[in-house]
């Protein structure tokens, strides 16, 4: 287990470094960062001064090393726009995004896993088809459109839920549903497929032969084995969700990291964009790493011996 964890950790570090290099190089794709910082009324000499001040005249790798060592200490430089440390800005916004991500993935799991189980229990039944229909819909529904439709229905027509903001739990209902619905189909399908596979396994028959109830067979014996890949998928989806919360946050005016990312892109605030890309990537990397560990833990064949 330890060796396994260390090996994965090595890969994690390597991937993180590569991602950091890629996100840093964005800065240099974008033309002259000095001119972007200088703002609206800067003269050529101002821009030159900024170039030296920020060290944009140094070689690429030197700047990257500098940025990376800062990033390791949690220092991502200053936002061009807010003139505040990027880390403060992001720390401030991240909680909303994390909350949204956790709510979204919980919603997805809480709906998709039971649906997948029930669908697998009665393949081709009405409920299976309904679940499949839901998941096919979810895959095809553009999430921004779904969000708008929810606002029209629940905020405007019915006036049940606030359309924007993050002041109360009601604010998170629609974003959670939109974000979660996006992750639901994959989780449901995987649960269903895993359950179907597991339900054909001999040990399920063994459990039935012991006189275990259907529920016990499903949830204790089958799901426990079928859930292993679902955990990995949920981790992956969680990573995607945080990165994909841009759309949802912008629709529901949630001031999270995704919205900050979008605005920062629009404002050409590259230090913030770089940091966010790196942080979202790190989340993905951490989640998948944790899910690998969780998998190992869930599967005694990896955990023991």
């Amino acid at each position, binding site marked *: 287990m330890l060796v396994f964890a260390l090996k994965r950790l090595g890969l994690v570090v390597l991937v993180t470094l590569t991602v950091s290099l890629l996100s840093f190089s964005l800065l240099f794709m974008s*033309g*002259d960062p000095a*001119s*972007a910082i200088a*703002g*609206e*009324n800067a003269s050529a000499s101002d821009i030159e001064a900024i170039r030296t001040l920020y060290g944009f005249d140094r070689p690429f790798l030197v700047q990257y090393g500098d940025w990376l060592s800062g990033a390791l200490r949690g220092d991502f430089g200053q936002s061009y*726009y*807010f*003139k*505040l440390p990027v880390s403060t*800005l992001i720390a*401030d916004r991240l909680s909303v995004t994390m909350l949204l991500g956790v709510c979204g993935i919980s919603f997805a799991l809480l709906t998709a896993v039971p649906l997948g189980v029930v669908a697998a229990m009665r393949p081709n039944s009405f409920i299976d088809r309904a679940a499949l229909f839901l998941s096919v819909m979810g895959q095809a529904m553009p999430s921004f459109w779904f969000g*708008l439709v929810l*606002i029209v229905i629940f*905020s*405007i027509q019915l*006036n*049940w*839920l*606030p*359309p*924007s*903001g993050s*002041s*109360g*739990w*009601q604010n998170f209902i629609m974003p959670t549903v939109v974000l979660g619905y996006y992750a639901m189909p994959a989780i449901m399908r995987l649960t269903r497929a895993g359950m179907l596979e597991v339900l054909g396994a001999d040990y399920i028959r063994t459990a039935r032969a012991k006189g275990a109830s259907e529920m016990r067979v499903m949830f204790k014996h089958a799901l426990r084995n079928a859930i292993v890949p679902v955990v990995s998928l949920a981790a992956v989806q969680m990573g995607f969700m945080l990165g994909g919360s841009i759309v949802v946050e*912008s*629709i*529901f*005016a949630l*001031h999270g990291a995704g*919205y900050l990312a979008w*605005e920062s892109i*629009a*404002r*050409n605030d590259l230090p913030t964009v770089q940091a966010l890309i790196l942080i979202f990537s790190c989340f993905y990397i951490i989640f998948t790493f944790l899910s690998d560990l969780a998998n190992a833990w869930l599967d005694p064949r990896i955990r023991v011996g």
Partner: protein
Amino acid sequence: MAVMMTGGEAMADKASDTLKAAFTKELESVDSYFNSAREGVILQRTIWDGLIYLNQATGKYEGNLATSWKWVDDTTLEFKLREGVTFHNGEEFDADDVVFTVNFVADPANGVVTQRNVNWMKEATKVDKYTVRIVTKGPFPAALEYLAGPVSIYPNEYYAEVGPKGMGLKPVGTGPYQVESVEPGKHFVLKKFDGYHDGPKGKATIGTVDIRTIPDVNTQLAELFSGGLDFIWGVPSDQAEKLAATGRFNVVNESTMRVGYLELDAAGRSGTDNPVTKLAVRQAINHAIDRQAIVDNLLKGKSKIVNAACFSSQFGCEQDVAAYDYDPEKAKALLAEAGYPDGFAIDLYAYRDRAYAEAMLAYLAEVGITANLKYLQYSALRDLRRNGETSMSFQSWGSYSVNDVSAITSEFFKHGAEDFARDDEVKAWLDTADTSIDPAVREENYSKALRKIADQAYWVPLFSYNSNYVFSKELEYTPTSDEVVRFFHARWN
């Protein structure tokens, strides 16, 4: 967490004496010298005071933190200050505050974002506790306009201690509202300042102003419908019409100083073979676009088509200039005359109002000009323009609400990085007008410049913008043409 549903009971807001408004843009800093957004101007006028106040109703300057002023010479203004004014933190207002603020912002090293707002000032000197002098770098006729506008006075002791960053997080001023809390970019809560002085702005009547940043107009509207907001502005005309039709809100339209125009690269900075270097082509483009139709159908409200390269109310904005009416046949003839009987292809850059830009694309297409829309962020487009890479771009300019032609025409025709005409004659006239304190001389020279700009069709002046203010029926508010929302003038009815 708030558990109360934001139901439709707008009554709650009047009852709780809280006006809920929305910003569209995330404000980078509340410190008015370190942001360049309209939202910043609104907060600036709410939290701080300038030495002078421009009465929007009469168009006259009134004393605000100063009670009287006079030009001592061409470059020196002397102010008598109002006594008994205190800042929100209790600090007393006197000449030291003015001197500190002016000297701080006028020093380019301190990096005030919009340098043109402050770089005309050389320094301020204290005469006595309530008398102060501001020295300009040269004759600057628009000085009062700026002192009534973007230059507001900060508390010297506090500002010296916390700097722009601290001021951005915990702003302190003398204005009608003091800041209760700031979540940078997201949320601002203002409280009525009970110790406000008897200046011309008048005391605020609404107890609390709660401003959230909601970037999407639709979300703002949805909040308005569900009672989460009381007051929004900048609502596009289509939505405003529909809102008015519901009868649930006050919808008021007011013109703004913002002018839209097409900037044509007459100087050939983007390439001398560029079609718009030819006068006939520029005139053809002027004739090709049905500005009246765009105003009538898209902008609506109090918008008007403009012919001169400025807003009509601005000092020096000559109205008697060449006007190009919508005449696609003439446009085609002009194009043929210029050697483009089959038209040509060109990039049209834009950064806002995509629908207007799209409408213009279609008009240009009708006379044979294939324009490709390149829609960029403002800063990105500005970089391109400064590098002279754009041959045609759709721009707009709000003159920082400064009611003087120097804030627009002089900005773009004095061979700066954003000057695509590079006309020496125009520059000379503008230079003369900008530095004279004789109104007659200024008017004459601005007029000459504006006429030549129109004759040469350096720009395609399009239209003036308008803004729709939509607010709860419980609120009373009269918008002004300077696009500054003055919460201290809003009241419950």
